[in-house]
């Protein structure tokens, strides 16, 4: 018995390491390429020993205003997250604690809107923003990011709130709590984990979003995702520079994600793992 267990243990450990390496490989490759020259970058087979250069990073910084892109990303991601939470929390609250016969249908239909390819909505939304003179503004991106994330946010918060036993809310009411006190002293502290996860997830999704950022605001309101795209032009692939730009774009969110990973992934579990 004991032998079989340790044998399968070794196998499992090896397998786990293999998978981990395989999945880490793309990021590693990206990092390495970013420090190559363009010539080294396109060499087949890949070169693994070379003198690292910072040239790509400085060139990206010269050609594009990195700080500007980064600020746009931070503003639109933060604002859309905040705005989304302000709308999603009350919606999820009422769905979780005062459900009607339709609540389930509404939730399903909200999710089903995410099934349509984004391209299907591009033209009308473009026209709407155009007629309000909002093309290429941070406001437009914030609004579209908020709308894009709203169904997921309501869903996640609903799942969290639904796990809070309603009797606790009722106990607070009987203890003399009005609506605000109930929210402030009971729902908010108990649901904080879920609210934070939801916010984090939506922040990351807004940060990584490229389709709308490219189509609605690349010149003034461009986010870091659009900066990457400007290096994958049809005239040819500049791998090293593209890698450097990618690294600079995803760097902050990867670091941010690293520190908040637990919270973040917990948010994606929809309460399924307990």
């Amino acid at each position, binding site marked *: 018995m004991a032998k079989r267990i340790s044998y399968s243990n070794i196998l499992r450990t090896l397998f786990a390491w293999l998978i981990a390496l395989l999945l880490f490989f793309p990021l590693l490759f990206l990092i390495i390429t970013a420090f190559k020259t363009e010539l080294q970058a396109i060499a087949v087979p890949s070169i693994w020993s070379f003198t690292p250069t910072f040239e790509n990073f400085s060139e990206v910084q010269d050609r594009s205003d990195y700080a500007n892109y980064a600020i746009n990303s931070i503003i639109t991601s933060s604002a859309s997250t905040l705005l989304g939470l302000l709308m999603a929390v009350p919606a999820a609250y009422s769905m979780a604690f005062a459900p009607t016969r339709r609540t389930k249908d509404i939730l399903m239909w909200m999710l089903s809107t995410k099934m349509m390819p984004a391209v299907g909505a591009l033209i009308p939304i473009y026209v709407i923003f155009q007629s309000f003179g909002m093309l290429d503004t941070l406001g437009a991106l914030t609004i579209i990011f908020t709308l894009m994330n709203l169904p997921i946010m309501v869903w996640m918060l609903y799942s969290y709130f639904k796990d809070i*036993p309603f009797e606790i809310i009722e106990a607070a*009411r*009987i*203890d003399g709590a009005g609506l605000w006190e109930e929210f402030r002293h009971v729902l908010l*502290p108990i649901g904080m984990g879920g609210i934070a996860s939801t916010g984090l997830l939506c922040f990351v999704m807004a940060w990584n979003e490229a389709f709308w950022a490219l189509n609605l605001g690349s010149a003034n309101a461009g986010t870091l995702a659009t900066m990457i795209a400007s290096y994958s032009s049809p005239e040819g692939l500049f791998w090293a520079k593209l890698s450097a730009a990618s690294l600079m774009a995803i760097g902050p969110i990867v670091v941010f994600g690293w520190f908040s990973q637990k919270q973040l992934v917990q948010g994606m579990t929809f309460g399924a793992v307990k």
Partner: protein
Amino acid sequence: MAFLHLNKVEKYYGNVHAIKGIDLAIEKGEFIVFVGPSGCGKSTLLRMIAGLEEIDKGSLHLDGKDISQTHPSKRDLAMVFQSYALYPHMTVTENMSFALKLAKESSAVIKQKVNDAAEKLDLTQYLDRTPKELSGGQRQRVAIGRAIVRSPKVFLFDEPLSNLDAALRGQTRVEIAHLHRELEATSIYVTHDQVEAMTLADRVVVMQAGVIEQVGTPMELYDYPANKFVAQFIGMPSMNILPSTLFRDAPYHTTEVGIRPEHFKLIAPDQAQLTGEIEMVEALGNETLTHININDQSQQIIVRQHQRSQLKPGQKVGLQWDTPKLHYFDDQGLVIR
């Protein structure tokens, strides 16, 4: 008018008439138990008193004031929930002081009251723990403590013992009875367990399908049930019901006769009017329950004896009963006195 007065209270869920007009007057200091099978409306009625369910028709008066439409936070009641419903993010102290803080009591008063309650409930050493760090029985006591610190007008208990194991249930039952004697607070207690109802209540309210079947002291219900439902619901094992044809002296209109298990005597079959065959003998140590199939009636009765029995399944026995202890029911199931 009584301290707490329910006047023709009704409740609908869509087309379902859940509470069908309840009239009930509860005096100050009484311990009232609502008991009935699941789905009888006892919890709904309690929640309507608490304000957690709306009263669709009728009125509810507490201490002379109509509170039918008052928000639960303004009714001055306390409730102990089946799931305890403690605030998971607060310590025991914070749980117990939450209501007082909302009521803007001074912190000195709050501290005093919480410490008093904690002492009474043997919780003093757990005051800084969160509910997660407590056992089931301790959580239960915190839930009770949260209720008593407020000195509310009425205590509501919604099946507070059903999440505890048998031993702890018995113990907590004694504690609740003790607290009630000490605080003399008006209490309404919901349970589906007739033993809890019998041992705790000043008066028991037996409910079925949204109506009150009978209200009375525990022994009134046991000795003089108003109908077949109450007769069979109160007492364990249930009262045996037999057709009236077996009883020569039954009053006119009787269709069925009820006999409690302890009012039968087992005798030799040849001396008895009624005989049967033993199906099973349940020996519990202090008493013996004998299940007997009545001959030619395809009916089973249970006989309780307070001593050991040497009888075995398959044996024939005769049955004798105490005629004054019989209960006669008409075709509506109502008792004939």
